[in-house]
């Protein structure tokens, strides 16, 4: 059964609309003198929260070593197939030769990327991160396929908690005792 809410008849003051109009004017005046909420975008930038999923980027560890070992897990997991990896060898005489592999080129098509973050989640080397860049523009499609150099530029260096390959090297030097 429908509930009937009794309506009180309007008072004379209410029927003139004037008290309500004055109340409204007061409210809008308060708004007028209160500070704006507009973020004037190109000049002001929003605060990017922790864990924001922006553009995927490649990072280096604090020693400046590129972390990607071109295992291609991200390439396989990427739902829109935006990532393309060209695996390569690390030269024998390099200080990090024991890592063995690194990408010769690493391409992410930013027009395909859906910012799902699966690449970051799947990466065993913690080499790919979705960081705070959210605005990607370009004049051509090919311009928006970011190559390895560009991805490292965007990614920069992130702190490392493990130094996995450094530990491996030291362990190998000590004869693999754990």
């Amino acid at each position, binding site marked *: 059964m429908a509930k009937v809410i009794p309506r009180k008849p309007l008072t004379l003051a209410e029927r*003139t*609309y004037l008290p309500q*109009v004055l109340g*409204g*004017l007061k*409210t*809008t*005046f308060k*708004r*007028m003198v*209160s*500070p*704006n*909420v*507009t973020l*004037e975008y190109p000049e002001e930038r929003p605060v990017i929260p922790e864990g924001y999923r922006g553009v995927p980027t490649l990072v280096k560890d604090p020693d400046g070593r590129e972390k990607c070992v071109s295992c291609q897990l991200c390439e396989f997991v990427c739902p829109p197939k935006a990532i393309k990896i060209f695996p390569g060898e690390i030269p024998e005489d390099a200080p990090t030769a024991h890592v063995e592999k690194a990408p010769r080129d690493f391409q992410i098509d930013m027009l395909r990327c859906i910012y799902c973050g699966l690449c970051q989640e799947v990466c065993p080397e913690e080499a790919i991160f979705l960081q705070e860049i959210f605005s990607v523009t370009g004049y051509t499609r090919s311009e928006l396929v970011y190559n390895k150099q560009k991805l490292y530029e965007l990614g920069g260096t992130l702190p490392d908690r493990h130094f996995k390959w450094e530990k491996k090297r030291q362990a190998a030097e000590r004869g693999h005792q754990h």
Partner: protein
Amino acid sequence: MAVDLLIVVGKALAVVVVLMGLCAYTVLAERKVSSWIQNRVGPNRTTLPVIGAIPVLGPMLTRLGLFQPMADGLKFLFKEDILPGHVNKVYYMLAPVIALVPALLTVSVVPFGQYVDADGVTRPLILANLDIGILFIFAISSLGVYAIILAGWAANSKYPFLGGVRASAQMISYELAMGLSVLPVFLWINTPGAPATLSLVAVVDAQAGAWFVLLMPLSALIFLISIFAETNRAPFDMPESESELVGGFHTEYSSFKFGLFFVAEYAHMIVGSAILVLLFFGGWHPLPWLTLADLGLAGGVLGGVLSTLVFLAKTLLVVFFFIWVRWTVPRFRYDQVMRIGWRMLLPLAIANLIAYVLFLAWWVTR
């Protein structure tokens, strides 16, 4: 003779140019005030090459959006002027002109200041000091509704037509209350025996003491509400009502023709505010019971400039009030507009008139 004519034309041009400038900047004020009320920033990017580059001043003016009206005006000039195939071409072209002409014509009898000349005679600053000032204004400003009806009819399309019909009903309803609400003012200033006048200058002179808003607040209120309805401003913007009738009477108009309607609306608003100030808020007297003559500032050019400035400031305050109300109050429903007009304002105005007639009759014969 020719020089006199030139002076008259010059004065008229000056007044019209100032009015048009005020219209342009009222549009800006509308946008700015609306954005402030909605906690936004409003137009703040348009800039001019040279002035905008002045170190501190340029960015400040840009931020205030002071160059925006020029961009808006240019937009009206350069947009495509569409002449729909289904319109009645003559009336369709005529309507915007008819909208603008009365709006600009009424300003000719609006006094905007006064000065004391070398002979000690007080002269009003006015284009045409008609003895029937207020009557002329009512007569001409109500012509503005023809433009709206004509536009609605000539567009030959349903929404403009509805807008035009609403406009005619609304104008007729509110003009009555408006006319009746100003009658007490003229009863007050016309004492028996003295030469009768309907001049707005006389009204302002009579307010050297108490302003009429203090003597007859109800008249002022009714007049204010009627002005809102007469100038098609929210909450009485029935003819336009963009949420129901697309754009109302100007739905089919574009480019410069729309611009003319736009300017006419704002010109109406400014002239309406000016008349409200003249009738009830003391015209160019800075405060109640305080005139420029009391301060010794009424003489010569200084007096003229000061009185004009005081009058302009008051008018712009009322314009601000118009804008403020527009962004506060939602539009009335059509039946509510009619009810307020016929069943509230009109009886109230008549009762108000009778009350003042009786009071003045007692006062004069006392």
